[in-house]
């Protein structure tokens, strides 16, 4: 029961080092062309340079801001509309094909329209990110609400809960696992939205850096940008996990924990 799994981080670090070494080995021996796969040492050097000179911060700041806004807005909208439609069957049946159509629409194509509506600044990137995050959260909230135990729901209604209280005390806590599952995917999508948005037209941001680097065959900077973004994505994901743990502390240990 109380046996803890063995410490994992040495293994993770070892794995990271191994991946890095493999990358280095494969590109140094030209088995993978360094033209496309970069040189790991140069990539590291580039990252160090960026942070040492501080030249990365204005770009990183913009990208992180866009990501956070897209993540928060997309999540809030997804949860709100997911709740609403899950609890209003007629509205839901009516909206169903439109939601699905919007979800299937290749949004990247609409980037020019976004820039008409939202300008070339942060807003249009946030809008792109929101459209990615929204649907992921929405579908999970929608399903999560439908999975609420009917007995628990009936119990709360008998105890006198009105609609708002049901939402607060039954639907939301019960859909929490669903929401968080979608948030893990969303963290990534928010970053993708921001970077692709920048990639499609911007004057700042890590996506802009990467676009320029690609245009000049500077694959090492491309990888450096990707690595920096990934590091921050892991940070944001860790925050999500932390919140999840706090909110779900009432749960029985999961299978993985008991096995």
């Amino acid at each position, binding site marked *: 029961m109380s046996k803890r799994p063995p410490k994992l981080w040495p293994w993770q670090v070892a794995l990271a080092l191994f991946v890095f070494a493999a990358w280095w080995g494969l590109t140094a021996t030209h088995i993978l062309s360094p033209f496309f796969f970069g040189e790991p040492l140069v990539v590291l050097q580039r990252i160090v340079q960026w942070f040492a000179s501080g030249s990365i911060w204005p770009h990183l700041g913009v990208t992180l801001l866009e990501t956070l806004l897209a993540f928060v807005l997309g999540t809030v909208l997804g949860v709100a509309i997911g709740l609403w439609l899950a609890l209003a069957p007629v509205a839901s049946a009516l909206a169903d094909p439109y939601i699905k159509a919007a979800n299937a629409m290749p949004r990247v194509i609409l980037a020019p329209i976004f820039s008409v509506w939202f300008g070339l600044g942060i807003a249009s990137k946030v809008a792109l990110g929101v459209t990615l995050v929204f649907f992921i959260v929405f579908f999970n909230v929608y399903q999560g609400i439908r999975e609420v135990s009917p007995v628990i729901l009936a119990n709360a209604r008998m105890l006198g809960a009105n609609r708002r209280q049901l939402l607060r005390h039954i639907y939301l806590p019960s859909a929490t696992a669903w929401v968080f599952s979608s948030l893990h995917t969303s963290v990534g999508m928010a970053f993708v939205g921001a970077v692709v948005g920048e990639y499609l037209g911007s*004057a700042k941001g890590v996506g802009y850096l990467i676009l320029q680097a690609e245009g*000049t065959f500077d694959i090492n900077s*491309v990888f450096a940008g990707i690595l920096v973004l990934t590091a921050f994505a892991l940070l944001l994901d860790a925050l999500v996990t932390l919140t999840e743990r706090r909110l779900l502390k009432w749960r029985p240990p999961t299978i993985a924990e008991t096995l």
Partner: protein
Amino acid sequence: LHAAPPEKSKLTIAVGGKPLFYYLPLSVAERQGYFKDEGLDVTITDFPGGSKALQSLIGGSADFVSGAYEHTIALQAKNQFIRSVVVQGRYAGIALGIRKDKAANFRSMKDLQGMKVGVSAPGSSTHIFLKALLAREGLPPDAAAAIGVGTGSSAVAAVRSGNVDAVASLDPVTTQLETAGDVTVVYDTRKESDQRALYGDDYAAAVIYTTEAFIEQNPQTVQAVVNAMVRALRWIQQATPDQIADIMPKEYYGGNEALYRQALAKNYASFSPDGRMTLAAAQNVHKVLATFDPAVQQAGKLDLERTFTNRFVDAALKKIP
């Protein structure tokens, strides 16, 4: 120089591929601080292609575009009126490279028929170049399959992986492919002879354009932008390629400075010496477009005088020797 303060000092200039040599004068103006000298606060927003940059102008999110002159004509055919205010490049600077293993059997442009040719994006100036080449041989515009392969590593990847048989590319892609021995260049509009053979005597490639409405409402702003650009063009004329390379951001070198300098030298001749546009050049461009663009063909007679103006360049040249 400061005749009157610009009506709008915060400006956005959209560009599809800022580090391209095609748009080098814009970067010179920025790096040398010429915009600031004019009292302008310019944000240069980069897009993955010229058509995207144009869309941002029409949508009202950008004030100017640093882009291909072709667009001003193509758009007039769609009742959108935009005008070139200063020319950056006289030559298209586009080259057609044939992949090494196909080059041996490539005798004439007619052999393009049935080939898969990489262009930066469908509809972009590289695509126009390809269609013009085909049209000159009397082939239909889709005789060769145009495949969008982007303007950077993805274009190189497309050639190396054998996904395209040929590529119509701008620098630095062309130089990259050429020096690495991936392609043989069979047509090169960075050279005056090829440029003239395909497009005619006078031509206009990269320009700065904006909407008619903007010019009307913000003449001082336009003048300020043109002033800065003309200064940049004049500076380029008296600088050596190496001096130009020196002032460019290091990121443009893409980790290979020698290659960059080499490519810049090849493109040096294509920059406009004074930024002026001629009607002959406009007619040439129109003639090329009309060989394949159905919208341009259908539009019939276009008012080419409405697609450019030398008014601002001439005013700038008066002050800048």
